[in-house]
C-alpha cells in the first residue's frame, strides 16, 4: 500500500467536528454508515454476497471443496480466509503480493468468525484424517473507503448464511444449507485525538491515532479484538469502545437477521 498522508489541517478539522459530536458526512460519532447487501449473486460460488458499507464495497464468495485435514486436526474441516487489496479498489493499493494490511484484514475477519464458534469445524469432517470440507472465504474488495474489517466480516457472515454445501457434485447426497445459526459481527472504532468514532471512512482511518476492532457474538460476549495503528488507547477508551461495539453489533445483527428473514 502506498503511503497516504492526510494533511494536519484536515485532521484538525475532523477532530473539531468530533469535538462537536459530528463528522464530515454528518454522522454521529457512534453511527455506522448505511449498509446494503444482496446475497446469492455469484452463481459459481456456493455462497456469496455483495455488500456496501457507505462507499466501501465488497463481494465475499464461499467455495467448498473436498481436501485433507490438517495433521493436528484430523476430524475437523478447514476454514481459509483470503483478502487482497487490489489496485482496483483504491488508488493507494498496489499490485503484487498481499500487503501487510491485507494480511491483517484477512486474519482479523477469520478470527472474528472462527472464534465465535459460528462454524462447527467438526461438522465439516467427512472421513476423519482423510476427507474434510475446505471452506474458502474470499474477500474481493471493489471500492475501499475505510473500515473493511466490519464490512468484510458482515459480508463473510452473510455469505456463510447464504451457502449451500455442494454435496451432490461430490457424490455425498443432496446439497444442504451450511449449518450455521450464529451472527458474529465486529465493530471498529478509531481514536482521533480524544474522540472515538465508529466505522471510520478512509480519511478518518488515516487521520486516526489508534484503531480497535471488536468481535461480538450473539450473546454480547467478546470473541476477538485487534488494536491497530501507531498510537495507543487507554483502558478507559477500550471500555468506551466496548460499549459502542456491543450496542452497534446488536443493532446491526437484528437488522441483518430481519433483512435475511431469520
Amino acid at each position, binding site marked *: 500500500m502506498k503511503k497516504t498522508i492526510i494533511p494536519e489541517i484536515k485532521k484538525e478539522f475532523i477532530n473539531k467536528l468530533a469535538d462537536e459530536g459530528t463528522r464530515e458526512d454528518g454522522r454521529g460519532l457512534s453511527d455506522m454508515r448505511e449498509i446494503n447487501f444482496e446475497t446469492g*449473486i*455469484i*452463481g*459459481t*460460488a456456493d455462497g*456469496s454476497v455483495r455488500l456496501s458499507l457507505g*462507499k466501501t*464495497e465488497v*463481494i465475499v*464468495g*464461499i*467455495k467448498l*471443496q473436498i481436501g485433507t485435514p490438517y495433521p493436528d486436526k484430523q476430524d475437523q474441516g478447514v476454514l481459509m480466509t*483470503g483478502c*487482497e487489496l*487490489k*489496485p*482496483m*479498489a*483504491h*488508488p493507494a493499493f*498496489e*499490485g503484487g503480493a*498481499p500487503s501487510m494490511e491485507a494480511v491483517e484484514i484477512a486474519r482479523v475477519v477469520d478470527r472474528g468468525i472462527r472464534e465465535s464458534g459460528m462454524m462447527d469445524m467438526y461438522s465439516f469432517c467427512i472421513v476423519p484424517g482423510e476427507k474434510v470440507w475446505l471452506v*474458502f472465504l*474470499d474477500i*474481493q474488495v*471493489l*471500492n*475501499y*473507503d475505510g473500515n473493511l474489517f466490519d464490512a468484510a466480516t458482515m459480508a463473510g457472515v452473510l455469505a456463510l448464511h447464504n451457502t449451500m454445501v455442494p454435496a451432490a457434485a461430490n457424490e455425498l447426497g443432496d446439497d444442504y444449507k451450511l449449518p450455521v445459526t450464529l451472527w458474529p459481527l465486529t465493530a471498529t472504532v478509531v481514536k482521533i485525538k480524544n474522540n472515538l468514532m465508529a466505522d471510520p471512512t478512509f480519511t478518518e482511518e488515516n487521520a486516526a491515532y489508534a484503531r480497535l476492532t471488536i468481535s461480538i457474538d450473539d450473546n454480547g460476549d467478546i470473541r476477538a479484538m485487534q488494536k491497530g495503528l501507531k498510537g495507543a488507547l487507554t483502558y478507559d477508551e477500550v471500555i468506551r469502545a466496548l460499549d459502542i461495539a456491543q450496542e452497534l453489533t446488536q443493532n446491526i445483527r437484528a437488522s441483518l437477521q430481519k433483512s435475511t428473514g431469520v
Partner: protein
Amino acid sequence: MICLTEIKLIDDDGLRLDGRKPDELRPIKIEAGVLDNADGSAYVEWGNNKIIAAVYGPREVQPKYLQDTAKAIVQVSYNMAAFAGDDRIRPGPNRRATEISKITAEALERVILTGQYPRSSIDVYIEVLEADAGTRCAGLTAASVAVADAGIPMIDLVPSVAAGKADGQLVLDVGKLEDNKGQADLPLAYVPRTGEIVLLQMDGHFTRKELEMAMKMAIDACKEIHVIQQDALKRKYTPQSSVNTNEQEAEQ
C-alpha cells in the same frame, strides 16, 4: 467419451442449448460508473459472466522505468476472482491471465489517444466475478466503457465477442458448453469507427471459408454490442433519469 458425444449443442430446430439462435448474442447488460474511487468503471453482465472494470489514470507510471516520454502507456490486469470458476482459483498471476492482460492492453492502446498523456500510465483492472465463457471479450467490452467513463479520449469504444463452431455449425457468442465441446472459438474485437480488428485469436478447427464467415459474424455482432456500450454511457451522462430507466428496461 460416450457421454460427451451424446451432448447435442444444436437441436433439431437449429437452436442452441440455451435456446439461442446460431447468430444470437446472450443478454448483455452494461452499467458505466459503478465504482466511487476509480476514475472510470463499468460493470457487465453477459450471460452469466459478471465482470467489473476499473480505470485509473492518466497517472504517474509505476515502476518509473516503464515511462514513455512520447505517450501514455496502457497497463491491463485481467484477473479471475477466487470464486469465479467451477473450482476455487488460487489468487495470483497465471499464464492465461498474463496473456489476456497483454492482448487486452494492445487492443485498448489502439483506440486510446495515448499521445495526449506523455509519461503517464492508464491502468485498467478487469475482475471476473463470475465466469461463463467469453470473459476476455466481455472484459475488453467493459474496459473500453470504463476508459470512456474516465473521460480519457478514445477513437471509439471497443466491442468484442467470440464466434465459434458447435456441432459443425457457426455460432455467435460461444457459451460455456460450446466452448468446452465445440470445434472452434474465435474471440474478436472490432472498432466500428475505423473498421479495424484490434483483438483476434482463434483455436480449434475452421476451414478458410468458415473462418471468414465467423469473422464477419463477430464483426456484425460487435456493432450490436457497440450500441449497448454507447447506451450505457448515455444513461450515465444523460441528465433525465426517467428516460434512462426506460432505456434500461427496454434493453433487458
